Every structure is written in structure tokens, then in C-alpha cells.
């Protein structure tokens, strides 16, 4: 003990001397490289005052974007059941914009009284007779691609709550159409083909597809419930889905989930996970196991390998039947013609992700602490050799698991999704471990001796869902950063009430070790996202022509030129052809009679960047955002007499407060 003490003191003395020698006050450089004798540099002072650790100081420098400068990358992320898409700058982790798709947003005048968005939302109704939906569960936004690389033109989004596909134009960052996919009551995921001529999605909840009145009891689940995979033809010019060119494939009621389209060696294939091959339906009050218990009883579920090009040929050859207005290839045909093969996958899988070149499909079973890597070549060989171990109850052949498996990477508990960088690494999120794990891929990304090895792990906070890396799902991933989209924030922010924001975390992946850089609180429930270089943002700052109809993407027929403002009456309909300009409405007085239908058509005649005006009309639940060059319409029925001011809701100029007008509704004479 004594000896140890002496050793300690001696060594301490030595180390102290060394520390003195190395950390002499006159050798600390300040930020400008100058030496401040006898003092501390301002940077050191900041570090000390804010009590930053070395890693934190590094992270601060790494993520700071000086005023006026742009981020390097833009993340297009989902707002979850807010029904929105968000654009977030990386590395600053600042929200750049939020785009409403499925629900109203009064700032953007979306679904808030304007006729164009009203029509788009109504077109996206679930079914005739049901109310117009004003929310959606937007899980996966996807940036359109040309030759397998982002082109920054369109964003397609899914809706898990209603089986819809929304299309957002990246020219003006506004929603152009919402398509209700027939026979699919849910849509967890929708993916583009490499040239964005197809949007492919599959239903999550099985439905009574093709049954009379779309009804069947759960007692007939195996016989009457079906899923569908939808291959939707995208008309780039119209920004719409062409249902006449689209088709579906009928599927067993296995809860098909995440999916991915192949490319390169896997071109023409579509891969889908399934999570309920047990065909459990719940029934807790009937003493049946709850859904999640029943659906996780088996060891394996099935990865669906779909030869969708073959399916398209069969459909075009007339093998499909039309159900609810779309051609559907029956399961019997799909099974007989070898359109779908199953490959066993670890139970309750979540992510299915494609290596950038299309050589490997990576599946994570939420309850299996591995990423299962399937080789596309092996799957093809197994299909060619008919290396099957049996058929499922619907006649689909099941390929032998071992015959298709390339590797099992032991990554950790609760693996979900996998993304890729530009140097042959894959990154998997782990919900249960709250980690991101980095591992090497096999050939051609790395030599075989370096393949499929876990090389790094970083803790995230907490319960990560998706993660995303720049251009990860394209042919050419970019690397550099990674964003963890964590479901829980727990203690990351000061008390904000019981509903907590979610927590996005930026991670530096440019070096061999991942480094956590920043936290970002976010409202809503971001699920998936995509990250593209900021240069791909080619949105208009003002509309190309004054009087632009954003829904039709051309000059509006009802656009009003300056000086031609007027109020027209046709019977009980009053049409206001008006303009807005800093800082007045023309007209600023509108007189109508009780019971009249009133149409306001406002054209923002300004062409100055950011000179947006609002039209907030008291009492009638209307607020428009009239962007520079845009023509916006709102229609009301003047049901109640009175005085209703309107004013500009978007602060526009020094005399913004004065930008007002009056709607006078004269009582009916009795």
C-alpha cells in the first residue's frame, strides 16, 4: 500500500511537471492564432463558461451555419399524423419549411377556404359518403428520381391512415394531388421507380377486397381478406397518377409492410415484408391473444419477392380483373405464373432496404438482433433452381432460407432500418438498444474478408425509428451525415407538458467513429425522410407568371390584372376580381346581400421575392396565402348579415396594419 502510494505520488509529480510543461499559459493559441500572454483565449473562455466538453465544442463548430449561409443538405422528412412534409437544413438542423398535404394549414392557406385545396382534399376522400379527410398519417416522403438519382422535381408521400398517395411539386412546394388507392385502406410506404414513372406501394391492413359491399367478417379472414400491392403509373407532366395505366396484385392477408423496388441486378423485382403470416386478428375481449402476441408467434414471416414486370405483362395480357376501377391480378394467377416467391425472414420484420447497387436486400426482424442480408443473385438462383421448401396456404412457393441468405450481421436489439454511405458501410437503427450500428457491406463494396462486420456503434436518445443518410436510397449515396429520427425525447428538453416533442439527432459519419453532433426537437411524428444536396432545391421564388394557378400550374383563367379589378354579380353570385399589392386590397369594400354566394379571386400582382399577402376574412373561416404572382380563390355563402373586416395576415410592409378591407353583408329585406 505504501509502495503504491509512493508510486502514485512520484508518477503524479512527474505527470504534473509534464502537464506544466505542455500547458504553459503562454502556449495556448487563441482563435486567430495569436498568443495572449498570461490569459485565456475567447474560445476557451466560451468553452469554459458554457462548460462544454471537447466533443461538444467540436459538434458546435461542425454544425454551425453562419447567418446568411446555406446548409449543405436538405432533409425532406415526414410530419407523421400532422399530414405534412418538412424541409430541414443539415447540418444546422433548422426547419426550413413545412408543407401541408393531408390537413389544413392556415399559414399556407391550405384547406382553409381556398377552392383549389378544397377540391384536392375532396378528391382524396376515403370513400363516397364519408367525410372529407383533413388528416393523414404521412410516413414516407420520397424525392423523385431520374436514372436512380434524385432530380428534385416531385415528392410522393404515403398515407398509412387511408391508403393514399400525395404528390407535392418541388417547384413551389405545394401539394398537387391526392390519389386514393382503390382496394388499399392503408399505405405505410410508397416508393418511386428509378425514373419515377411508377409509384409502388402496398396495403398494410388487409381488407375485404372485392367482397360485396366491401364487407366480410373477421371469422372469414383467411378466405375473404386480402392485401394488394399497387403499381401506380405516374404522369410527370400532370403531377398525377394515371389509374388506367396502373394495376394491383392481390396478396394473402399477411400485413404487407415496408417495401423496396430493385435496381441493377434486382431490376424488375419488388420486395415486401410481411408481419402477420400467423393471420392473427386479435380479439382480446374474446380471450384471444392480443394482436401483437398472435402476430409474433411464429419464428418467421415472409419476404415477398415480386416479379412485377412479369405481373405487368400478365395484366396487359388480360389476366387481371377490374375491382373498384383498377386492374387486379388475382393471387391464383400470380402463384401459377411464378410472379411471387416467398423467402422466410425473421418474424415481425420492419425495414427492407436495398444496397445502393441493388445487389443485397437487408431485412431487420424487430425481435431478432441481426440484420439479415439476402443476396439478390442467390434469390434468383433459388428461383431458377426451384429450390423451395414448400408452399404457403395460398399456393405461393417458399424459397429455402439458407439458399437466399448472404449474411447475418449481429447488430443489436430491435433493428429497424438500414441506410448507406458512399464508402461501403451500412447503418442500422435499433429501437430497443437506442443505438445506430455501422457495419461493412460485402462485395462489391468491400473485399470478402472485410464484409459484414460491425465496426461502430453510437447511442441515440431515445427509441430510434428511422434513420437517414444523404441519397441513401439512390445509386450514389453521399455519406457525411446521418440523422436519427428518435421517437421519444424523454429528458432532452425542459418541461413542455405531457406531450413530448420527438428528437432528431444529427450524427457525423465522415470518420471511422460516429459522433453525435446535435439534438433537434420536432413536433409531429417524423417517420422516414430523404436527404438531398441543397443544390437540388430548384424551387421558384416567385411564380413564373402573374396570375398563376398553383393547382393547375399555369396562368389562371380568373387572374386579374392591375387596373381591371371589379365586382361582378350573376344572380345571387358575387365575384370579386381583385388584386393585392403592398399595402392594399383592390377592392377594399365588398357589398353583398344576405344569402349571396361570394367568390373572392385575389391575384398578387407583385413579383418581388417574399412579398406574400394574406387574406384573413373574419367570421367565415377563410385565410388565404397569396404568394407573389399567385391567384387564389375563396368561396363563401354570406349566411349572416353584418360587418366582416378582412386584412392581410402576412406582415408585408411598413403599412401592413393598414392593409385591410370590408365585407358588408346587408340584411335581407323582409
Amino acid at each position, binding site marked *: 500500500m505504501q509502495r503504491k502510494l509512493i508510486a502514485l505520488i512520484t508518477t503524479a509529480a512527474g505527470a504534473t511537471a509534464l*502537464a506544466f510543461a505542455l500547458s504553459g499559459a503562454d502556449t495556448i493559441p487563441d482563435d486567430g492564432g495569436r498568443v495572449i500572454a498570461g490569459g485565456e483565449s475567447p474560445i476557451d473562455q466560451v468553452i469554459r463558461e458554457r462548460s462544454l466538453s471537447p466533443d461538444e*465544442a467540436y459538434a458546435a463548430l461542425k454544425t454551425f451555419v453562419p447567418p446568411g449561409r446555406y446548409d449543405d443538405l436538405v432533409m425532406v422528412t415526414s410530419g407523421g399524423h400532422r399530414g405534412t412534409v418538412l424541409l430541414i437544413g443539415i447540418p444546422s438542423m433548422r426547419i426550413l419549411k413545412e408543407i401541408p398535404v393531408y390537413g389544413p394549414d392556415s399559414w399556407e392557406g391550405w384547406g382553409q377556404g381556398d377552392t383549389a385545396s378544397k377540391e384536392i382534399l375532396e378528391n382524396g376522400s376515403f370513400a363516397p359518403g364519408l367525410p372529407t379527410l383533413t388528416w393523414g398519417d404521412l410516413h414516407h416522403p420520397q424525392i423523385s428520381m431520374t436514372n436512380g438519382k434524385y432530380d428534385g422535381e416531385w415528392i410522393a408521400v404515403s398515407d398509412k391512415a387511408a391508403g393514399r398517395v400525395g404528390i407535392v411539386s418541388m417547384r413551389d412546394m405545394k401539394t398537387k394531388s391526392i390519389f386514393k388507392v382503390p382496394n388499399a385502406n392503408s399505405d405505410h410506404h410508397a416508393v418511386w421507380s428509378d425514373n419515377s414513372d411508377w409509384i409502388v406501394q402496398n396495403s398494410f391492413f388487409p381488407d375485404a377486397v372485392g367482397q360485396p359491399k366491401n364487407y366480410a367478417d373477421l371469422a372469414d379472414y383467411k378466405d375473404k381478406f386480402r392485401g394488394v400491392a399497387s403499381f401506380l403509373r405516374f404522369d410527370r407532366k400532370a403531377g398525377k397518377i394515371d389509374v388506367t395505366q396502373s394495376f394491383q396484385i392481390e396478396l394473402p392477408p399477411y400485413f404487407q409492410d415496408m417495401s423496396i423496388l430493385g435496381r441493377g441486378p434486382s431490376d424488375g423485382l419488388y420486395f415486401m415484408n410481411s408481419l402477420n403470416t400467423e*393471420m392473427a386478428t386479435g380479439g382480446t375481449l374474446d380471450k384471444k391473444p392480443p394482436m401483437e402476441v398472435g402476430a409474433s408467434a411464429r*419464428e418467421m414471416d415472409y419476404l415477398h419477392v415480386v416479379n412485377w414486370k412479369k405481373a405487368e405483362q400478365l395484366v396487359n395480357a388480360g389476366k387481371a380483373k377490374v375491382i373498384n376501377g383498377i386492374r387486379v391480378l388475382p393471387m391464383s394467377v400470380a402463384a401459377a405464373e411464378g410472379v411471387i416467391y416467398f423467402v422466410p425472414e425473421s418474424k415481425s420484420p420492419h425495414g427492407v432496404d436495398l444496397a445502393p447497387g441493388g445487389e443485397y436486400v437487408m431485412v431487420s426482424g424487430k425481435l431478432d438482433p441481426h440484420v439479415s442480408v439476402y443476396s439478390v443473385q442467390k434469390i434468383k438462383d433459388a428461383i431458377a433452381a426451384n429450390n423451395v421448401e414448400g408452399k404457403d396456404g395460398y399456393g405461393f412457393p417458399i424459397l429455402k432460407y439458407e439458399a437466399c441468405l448472404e449474411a447475418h450481421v449481429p447488430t443489436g436489439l430491435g433493428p429497424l432500418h438500414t441506410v448507406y454511405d458512399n464508402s461501403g458501410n451500412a447503418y442500422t437503427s435499433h429501437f430497443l438498444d437506442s443505438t445506430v450500428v455501422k457495419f461493412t457491406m460485402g462485395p462489391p463494396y468491400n473485399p470478402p474478408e472485410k464484409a459484414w462486420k460491425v465496426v461502430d456503434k453510437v447511442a441515440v436518445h431515445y427509441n430510434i425509428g428511422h434513420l437517414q443518410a444523404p441519397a441513401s436510397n439512390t445509386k450514389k449515396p453521399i455519406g457525411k451525415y446521418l440523422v436519427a429520427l428518435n421517437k421519444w425525447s424523454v429528458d432532452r428538453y425542459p418541461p413542455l407538458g405531457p406531450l413530448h416533442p420527438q428528437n432528431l439527432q444529427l450524427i457525423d459519419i465522415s470518420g471511422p467513429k460516429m459522433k453525435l453532433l446535435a439534438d433537434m426537437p420536432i413536433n409531429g411524428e417524423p417517420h422516414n425522410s430523404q436527404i438531398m444536396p441543397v443544390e437540388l432545391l430548384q424551387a421558384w421564388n416567385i411564380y413564373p407568371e402573374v396570375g398563376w394557378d398553383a393547382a393547375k400550374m399555369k396562368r389562371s383563367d380568373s387572374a386579374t390584372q392591375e387596373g381591371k379589378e371589379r365586382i361582378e354579380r350573376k344572380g345571387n353570385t358575387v365575384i370579386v376580381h381583385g388584386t393585392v399589392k403592398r399595402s392594399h386590397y383592390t377592392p377594399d369594400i365588398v357589398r353583398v346581400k344576405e344569402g349571396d354566394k361570394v367568390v373572392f379571386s385575389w391575384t398578387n400582382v407583385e413579383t418581388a421575392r417574399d412579398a406574400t399577402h394574406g387574406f384573413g376574412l373574419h367570421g367565415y373561416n377563410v385565410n388565404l396565402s397569396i404568394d407573389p404572382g399567385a391567384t387564389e380563390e375563396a368561396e363563401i355563402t354570406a349566411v349572416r348579415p353584418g360587418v366582416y373586416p378582412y386584412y392581410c395576415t402576412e406582415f408585408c410592409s411598413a403599412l401592413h396594419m393598414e392593409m385591410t378591407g370590408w365585407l358588408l353583408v346587408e340584411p335581407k329585406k323582409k
Partner: protein
Amino acid sequence: MNAETSTPRGYDPIASLALAVVASIALALAWLLPWWTMEARAPQYGQRTLVVEVSPVKVGGDIFEVDTLGHYVGIRPMGELASFERILAPFGLVAAVLGVLAAPFLRRRWLRALAILPAVVMPIFFVFDLRYWMDRATNERDPDASMNLTVTAIDTKILGDYEIAQFKVTAKLGGGIFVGGIAGLLAVGMLFATPLPLRRRRPANAGAAAAIAGVFFLVPGSAEAAELQVGPEDLLHDALVWAQPGDVIRVRGVHHERVVVPRSVRIYGEPGAVLDGGKEGTVMRILAPDVVVQDLTIRNSGANYNQEDAGVRIEAAPGVVLRRVRIEDTLFGLFALQADRCVLEDSTVIGLDLPVERRGDGVRLWASAGCRLLRNHVERSRDVIIWYSADTVVEANVVRNSRYGLHYMYSDRNRFHHNVFEDNQVGAAIMYSRDLELTENAFSFSSGPSAVGLLLKDADDVFIRRNRFVGNATGLFLDNAPQARDGRLEIQGNWIARNDVGLALQPNVRRARLWENAFVGNRGQVEVQGTGSAEGNEWAVEGRGNYWSDAIVYDPDGDGVSSLPARQESTYEIMAERHPVLGFYADTPAAEAIDLAARWFPIFQPRPRLVDPHPLVKAPTDAWSVTTAHPAERGGLLGLGALLLATGASTYWSSRRAIG
């Protein structure tokens, strides 16, 4: 969905026995009935028809008249034909009946074939013999007869009409041969039916009755618990098919079969009893409640994940007990689905020799409440899984060389005592559960990419006492536990030593109480994941904190509790996390010196991770201690011993030779 691989072969003991009984009744009936009849008409007899009835045992009817008539033309008297056969016939019948009754109990098919031979052969032999004698009787006529028939050869028929002189004869097969033939066919069926167990020992008082005939067992449920013997030559399958609820089946020898246990029986293995699945499918499927299997080796399942090939699979059957079984070389060991109150005790489970991720689970309890895993040894498996299974007791088990020693979710009120989790990737992962006790377990030598001794996530009311966490990558990992407002997590009296990281916490861990634990020589004693601190937890309870091997203590009043708070804020640790190479110096004077220097001259402020206000001067002595010497260490000791012995011996030998 689940592809069946081991459907039981020919089933139902009743069928087999029914065959025997019906066949023997048929044979008895055949004894009484005529087998062949010959009706003869002649003008001189007017309306009267002479009838001769022939059976194996007698020739009856109007035999006198016929013989008299025949006599005139030299036909031998029928009553005297085949007398030898007729003497033999009763023996043949008895043999046939006995053979048929014995057949269901015979294991070997050739034995059964032999047993049924009389029943099958008799009708055939009868027909040919009859034909032979009839032919001889009519054609080897007495040349000295009163009359000579004009024809030289008479074509007698066994079936059909013919004429002899003015007689019109109609020959028909009688009921007897039909019944006898049916008995024969039934007997043939027995060749393919499931044989019954040979020895069915009744309890003493019922033994005699049981010995009489298998007929007794036809009445289901009437029998008291019986004992069935399955010898090396028998099929366990047959006994299972035959046994009634409550019966005991004693198994001897090696059985190459896969079985289904459809009823609540007890299967006891004699020493050396083995059930070998032949590397296909699931070896034993238990579908009935309260089945007991003990002293049996179950081995060689298939390796198909999609079919979940297992040693033992229990489906929707409560109260199953597996005792002293050895499940080896199976993909899954015990796969229990909705098997409430299942017991696995004093058993061994050893998985297939595959890479760990390709193995199945040693034990999987799924939606099975109230189970007990006691004193088992699980090795070379993937995981031991307990999901959706409340009220489980896991006691004195050893899980080694596996992935997750315990993978445990959505299961409340469970007890884990005295288990050893060694050399796994993760000792135990416990999630989404509440009301758990972990006492005196050892979580040791967990290594691998995400290696942890014990991972606790989203759990409440967890009491972790007197466990050992030794030599793991991370000893104990806490994430969001406790989580509920009133949730508790108490970690007391544990020995956390020589791990890379002793205790790792997510910064969301608050309100945990940790005291009287010994943190001894961990490379990092406590590590917070990401930024944050562990200060929101109680590091001392009632004035007693933890023992920190790296703390400077001062105890002037000699109460064993230091007056100096212990801070975990080591700059060295921060540096070691960033530069793992420094870990080499852990617990050396150099590390302490680096720490000291850094504290005196901070460039970056060390941030306190936690403050233990009342650190203990000595490691608590009541910490549970078991020998958890690493196998490699034991191996090393063994090697050393052997080396010393060898050296000693060789020295002795060489010295002897030198002298010699």
C-alpha cells in the same frame, strides 16, 4: 400455415383392436356356418332337393342320401372324404382365432403375418382342398360299382350348375366361407394397422382381468392408470397412440422416431432412453395438458426455421413438466406456445453446432404464464426467450455460450434467482415488464458487439440484489427504468467488477436507487450514454452509498462510511472513452496520475456524472459470492496442473534413469 412434418402414422388403437375382435368373432361364426353347399335334384326325388353342407369340421345335410346315390355309380361317400383335414380343422380354427387376437400386440410385421396366416390361409385352402376331393370323389370312381356312368370325366364345380347323370347339381359357397374370408381380410388389415403395446401392466388387483384379452381396453377411460413398456424394438409412437390419460409409459433404448403426445400421459425414460428425430422436424410435440416427460434424451431435430423445428414443442397445453430431460442437437430446444404452468427442471439443452445466429432458442416461452425454469443447463443456443409470460420463476439455471442468456419482454411478476449467465453476447435483456426480482445471479463475461451483462429497459418495480456482474463489456445497462410515476428500481448489494464499463445509463434514468453495491476496478465505473448525468438517481440510501474502488475515502468515525463524497467525474474516463488505448492503464498509478493532473489543470471542465454522498470504505461483505471462474481460467488451471505434474513426473523419471 405451419407445415406439418411429423403427422402420426396409422392411428387409433380402437381400430386395431376392433379388427382383431371382429375377425375372431367372424372365425367363431364360421365354425358354425356351412362353407359350401351342394344342392342336387333328380326326378326320382320329386320336389325334394338334396342338400349337402360342407364346413371345415363336418359334412352335413342329406349326406346319407347323396352317398347312397353316389355309391351306385361308384362315387366315394362324401362323409369319408378329407377326414384328415377335418381332424386338423378345429386346430386350424383355434390357431386362426388366437393368431388374430395376438396380432395387434405383435411389434414386428412378419410376426403379425405369421399370426394371421391360419385365418388367411384357411378359406383358400378349404376351396382348393374341396375342389381336390370332389374331383377325386367323382372321377376316381369305384370300377366295381353297380352302374357305370357313360361319361368318363365329370367336371365337378365348386361354384355353379352341372349335371351328374340325371342329377342337376347347384354348387354354392356357404356363409361360412364368406365370414371366414372376411376374417382373413381383416387379418390382412392388421398387418398394416398400428400394433398395440405388448406389455400393459395393470395395477396388481386388475392384472388378472387385463391379462385375459385386449377387449377389456376397448372401453375408454374405464381403466385406471396403467403402465406401458416400450422396449428398444417397440415404437414409442404406438404406446402414445394407445395410452390413456394418466398412464405411464416407460421407455427403454434408442428410438428413431418423432412423436406427438395427444393425451395426458407420463413418459419415463429408463437409463439410456433416447428419442432421436433423425434431423427432421420436431422430435416431440405435446398437445395435451399435464404431460410429464422425464429422464429422456431428445435429440436431432431438423434445422428448418420456417417450420420451427424443435426438440420439444408444447402447444396450448398447460401444466406440462419436463424433468431431467436432455435435449441436444435440436434447432429450438423447448418451444412452448400457450403452455401455462410449464415446468422445465434439472434438464440440459444443447443446441445445434451452428453459428450463433443460425441456432434456434434453447428455451422459448411464448404466452405461457406461471412457468418454472429450475436448475437447467442451456448451452450453445441462440436465446432463452420469455415473452408475454407472467409469473415465471427462473432459478438456478446456467446459460452459456449463447446469444441472449435471457430475452425477456412483456412479462410481469417474474423471479430470477441464482442463475448463471456466462459467455453469452447478452446475459439478460429485460424489457417492457414490471415487478421483477433478480437476486444472486451471475452475469459474467458477456462479449460481442452489443454485449451487456444485464440490459434493463422500460421496466418498473425491479429489484436487483446481490448479483455479480463480472468481466462483461458492460456490466449493467439501464434505459428508461424506472419509467412509471410510481415505478421503482432498486439496485443493492451487487458486485460489479472488472467490466469495461460497470454501469451504463441512458440519461433518461431517474429515481433509481443504488446502494451497497461494489464498483470494483471497472475500466469505466459509470458511463452515461451521450451527454447528461446520472445525478437524478439516489446513490445512497439511509446513509449508505456504494463502494468505489477508485474513490478516496476518509472515515474518521470508523463507521465504514466515508465522510468524503465520492464523485464520478473522472477526466481520465472521458479521455479513455475517446482513446480506448488508455484503458490499458486503468487502475494503474499512471491513470490516477493523469486524472490528478487533469483535475489540477483542467482545460475542459470535468462534469460530475454522479455524487455518492456516503461511499463505503470497504466492499460490502455480504455480497453474494459464487465461484464464477471463467472456464478458460479453469482450463488454464487444469493445464498448469497437468504441466506441473508432467514436469514433476518426467524429472522423476529422468532422474531415475540417470541413476539407473
